[in-house]
């Protein structure tokens, strides 16, 4: 029961944090193609492979905000979707990084990759594609 209460509390904290996040979607500086939010949603749900998406790990509150605001589904729905693809051999989920610095570093060094970070963390090594409020 204590565990249950604790998880409620944790879930509550996460909800508060995600509500405040303002995130930006970033690509390699050389990217000149126009990429819509729909394209991003397709890339992050395995329906398109034109770009290599990278994710933040579950522990990072930005992840939940991205899933909800950019992909329009909750993190657990996205997880359920990927588990279906993984366990039928039809796809593997995006690479995950623990920190936004790692995401920026990966995107800055991989021409066709796409990632997202909190707007306060963005650096000039990447190109900002969209701001998701």
């Amino acid at each position, binding site marked *: 029961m204590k565990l249950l209460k604790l998880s409620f509390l944790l879930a509550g904290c996460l909800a508060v944090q995600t509500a405040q996040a303002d995130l930006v979607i970033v690509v390699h500086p050389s990217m000149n193609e126009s990429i819509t939010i729909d394209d991003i949603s397709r890339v992050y749900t395995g329906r398109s492979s034109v770009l290599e998406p990278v994710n933040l790990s579950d522990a990072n509150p930005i992840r939940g905000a991205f899933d909800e605001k950019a992909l329009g*589904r909750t993190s657990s729905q996205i*997880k359920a979707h990927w*588990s279906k693809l993984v366990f039928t051999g039809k796809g593997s989920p995006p690479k995950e990084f623990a920190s936004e610095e790692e995401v920026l570093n990966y995107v800055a060094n991989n021409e066709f990759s796409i990632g997202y970070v909190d707007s306060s963390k963005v650096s000039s090594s990447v190109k900002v594609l969209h701001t998701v409020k």
Partner: protein
Amino acid sequence: MKYIIIVLLFCLPTTLQAVDFKVSGYGSIVGGKVVSGDLDPSGEIEFQVDFYDYAYYVEDWAWDKESLVALQMVASINNRLDATIQLVAKAADEWSPDIDWFYLTYKLNDSSKIMAGRRMLPMYYFSEYMEVGFAYPWIRPPANLYWWEITQFNGLTYLYNFELGNWNLDFSAFMGEETQTNIKSHDFWRNRGGYYFPPAGVYISGTADVSWSDIIGVNLAAANDWLDIRASYFSTRYTTTSDVMFFDELDSNGDGIADAVIERRTNPDGTPIRSGQWSLTDFDLSFYGLGGSMYFKYATVLFDYNYVTYDDGYGSRFPTFYVSAIYNHDTWQPYVGMSQAKLKITEDFDGFGTGEAEEHQIITLGLRYNVMANAALKFELNKFKDKGDRSPWYDFSYHNDATLFSVALDFIF
């Protein structure tokens, strides 16, 4: 031996540096208890949850019917070839791990690949991942639809993926075969009159061997940002052999009326009498299905319509469907569902008549609570109703009405 293989598989990544390994897994701890219902012929109030594994709940709590844990390993042998193995340990098999799947995936190009080996048979909308509880809202896909003895097959699958405007399309063609031996589920059908119509109160035990040969089929799946839809078709040769029983009617005084009935189930050496060359089923089966998911802002609707035909003397047809709606709150997902299955006899065989021979329905009410990003707790109530016992048709395969309460913890890693 199995444990040695598992240990080896875990150690391999450290010894074979050149091969890229990915390990993931899923599991479910499921408990259930029948809360109300009618007695079935064996004297229990049963709720069938898994026909092919013969899993059912009674009025006592049980945790060993559907609980399982699975480990998937994908080894990238080179940039075109992957090997996938899935080990599944089920509580029903005393947690002894089995290699459920083993297949090789060869990438022909960016959009097409070939899979060779043992995989799930793409039948119903949820068939390919029916054991991955985390991937769907309920504790289990509707048990009166997902009842076949065969759920996997050995063979080849060709997959072609392409994009068309907003849509992502997946075409697959597959062929293969599968045989399952010593299936207990046939007790269930036979004891309730499925094949032999034994006299009331006669309860026999035995097993069956089922083979689906010449499986050949196609799937087409299309998805956009709110709709995911899938059409499937396959055909196969369905053969069953089983333990059988005979009733020898003896007429000692020759008046045309049997004076004694002798029941025979075993050979003189005590072994069960098998149907042998005389198959209980030996006909072509065709499967047609259309299923999908619709995603709205706060709700998801899932549906599946299926039609199975037997090329048997009775022209058996099985129209089945289910529909389910889920409300998506952040962490709470309440859901409702309804599934219905029917058997229709469409050809008059030897004056047997035509009509509806079986009909049952499951109504589901449940709640999924996403405890963590990779774990969900579920509570579910299922109400099973046998609707097939109306005149002039007696029930082909009687199921007792029952209500089941179950809880599950589904996780992935």
